[in-house]
């Protein structure tokens, strides 16, 4: 395929993905908005004032960046895992496999589709947060870069999960037993400086901590970790997962006989 045909194929996959999650917005866009509003009400407005300041900010100001990031992570992941597994399950993935679309275009199409949903939900959550607090942005490039890279990283992870999954149970195991605990323990609701030294060390092994803190740094200008190191790590993970995903597609793992 020449570059123009590859662009058409990429935009076809991307538009199909965007149409999919906007067509079923009651399942994809509304639930995270409702969930996050409940977090804002309970942790921000009801419990927040009793907690007091956290790292110099009101509790609602402190948790908003973490909650935005949490919705970006879960939605970019779940979009790709459910969509790509769905195409495998219905065998409509064969439409792509028999076509001349290069594997990296297939991967990019699904990943950017997941990124679009993650960012769209992130935007909805950000707009909703304005009803509860004033939002400031201290470092715009850092904010934009980390939210985009995080969405890419989890969309790639969702793709890998979908390739290996054999049943619908398999696409909920990782989000339930890995993603959610890591997110909740990744500094969304607290600063790791509150933890004993040992648990601070353990927390630093959690990659989501770096993404949440870098995003919080972009918005509020505060962080528990080194931002440059966080970017290096996220970019490194993105590259590694992209290469691994391409390897799986080239080998045809669980896609071709």
């Amino acid at each position, binding site marked *: *395929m*020449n570059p*123009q*045909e*590859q662009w*058409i*194929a990429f*935009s*076809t*996959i991307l538009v*199909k993905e965007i149409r999919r999650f906007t067509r079923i917005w009651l399942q994809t866009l509304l639930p995270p908005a409702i969930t996050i509003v409940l977090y804002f009400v309970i942790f921000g407005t009801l419990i927040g004032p009793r907690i007091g300041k956290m790292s110099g900010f009101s509790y609602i100001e402190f948790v908003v960046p973490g909650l935005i990031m949490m919705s970006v992570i879960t939605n970019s992941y779940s979009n790709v895992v459910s969509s790509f597994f*769905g*195409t495998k399950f*219905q*065998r*409509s993935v*064969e*439409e*792509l*496999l*028999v*076509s*001349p*679309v*290069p594997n990296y275009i297939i991967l990019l199409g699904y990943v950017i589709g997941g990124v679009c949903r993650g960012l769209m939900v992130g935007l909805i959550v950000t707009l909703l947060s304005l009803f509860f607090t004033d939002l400031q942005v201290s470092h715009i490039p850092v904010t934009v870069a980390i939210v985009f890279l995080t969405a890419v990283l989890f969309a790639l992870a969702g793709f890998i999960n979908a390739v290996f999954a054999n049943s619908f149970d398999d696409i909920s195991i990782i989000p339930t037993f890995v993603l959610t605990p890591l997110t909740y323990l990744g500094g969304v609701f607290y600063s790791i400086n509150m933890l004993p030294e040992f648990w601070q060390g353990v927390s630093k092994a959690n990659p989501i901590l770096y993404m949440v803190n870098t995003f919080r740094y972009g918005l509020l200008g505060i962080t528990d970790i080194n931002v440059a190191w966080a970017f290096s790590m996220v970019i490194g993970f993105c590259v590694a997962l992209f290469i691994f995903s391409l390897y799986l597609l080239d080998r*045809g793992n669980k896609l*071709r*006989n």
Partner: protein
Amino acid sequence: MTPALSIRNLHKVYDSGFVALKGIDLDVQQGDFFALLGPNGAGKSTTIGVICSLVKKTSGDVSIFGTDIDKDFSLAKKDIGVVPQEFNFNQFEKVFDIVRTQGGYFGLSSKLAEQRAEKYLKKLRLWDKRNQPSRTLSGGMKRRLMIARALVHEPKLLILDEPTAGVDIEIRRSMWQFLKEINASGTTIILTTHYLEEAESLCRNVAIIDRGLIVQNTSTKSLLRQLNKEVFILDTQEALAELPHMEGYQGQLIDNHSFEVEVEKHQSINALFASLSLHGVHVVSMRNKTNRLEELFVSLVESHSAAPVVQISQEGKQ
């Protein structure tokens, strides 16, 4: 002329250890209407899967219009349209979107993909269903949808794996007519089917595959010439009390208005009718008891199952 499809020494061993293909050789010429026949599990779908990249071959060479799939599969795939045996489209997508999207996967601009989707949905009488989710279509409509989808990029080679399975006779015949038109316009067609009447009426050349080997590869006409004996059913005007006398022919009475008769390859049907006329029997209609290709197919597969495996060379192809 470069063959539309060339297969050399193709082997496929699945992870389970099952040997699906044991080194097949096959050429399909450009413009041909070619039947790939075989019993269930013979290797037809595996062969098609390898050609269109859904199955990874173990060894061997496959070329599409001279392009080796190992060297440039992307280029080779541009020339192939495939209609699989199982429905493999998104059940929630609309009919029009399924066809248009496939055009996008082949690099067609949005406008061209929409034009082609309209063209083929109209030709396959699905245009009035274009805004319906595909899951609401009947079985026959779903088959036609897969044909429209496979044609959207106007491939030079169309591969159909059991395209008329489960389709009623009226739709089947209209699909045959459509496929004849597509073939007449220059598209090479490879067809697998269990309806041997379909292969006999559509295909100029035929290969029979059994247990992973090609056991016959020739023109449909020369294959039919191998038939040593045909059984006809004759219906008579007057009621018959017993089987009419037919010198040199074997037969048996079916009911009081019809009987069947075996005609050997060396025997003449004219002589049969002469004999019947002589005895005052007036025949009003005549038909084959079974499809001729079906008789050959059964005898070839049965003899192959009984005999040691030997590949039969291509001969008499048109």
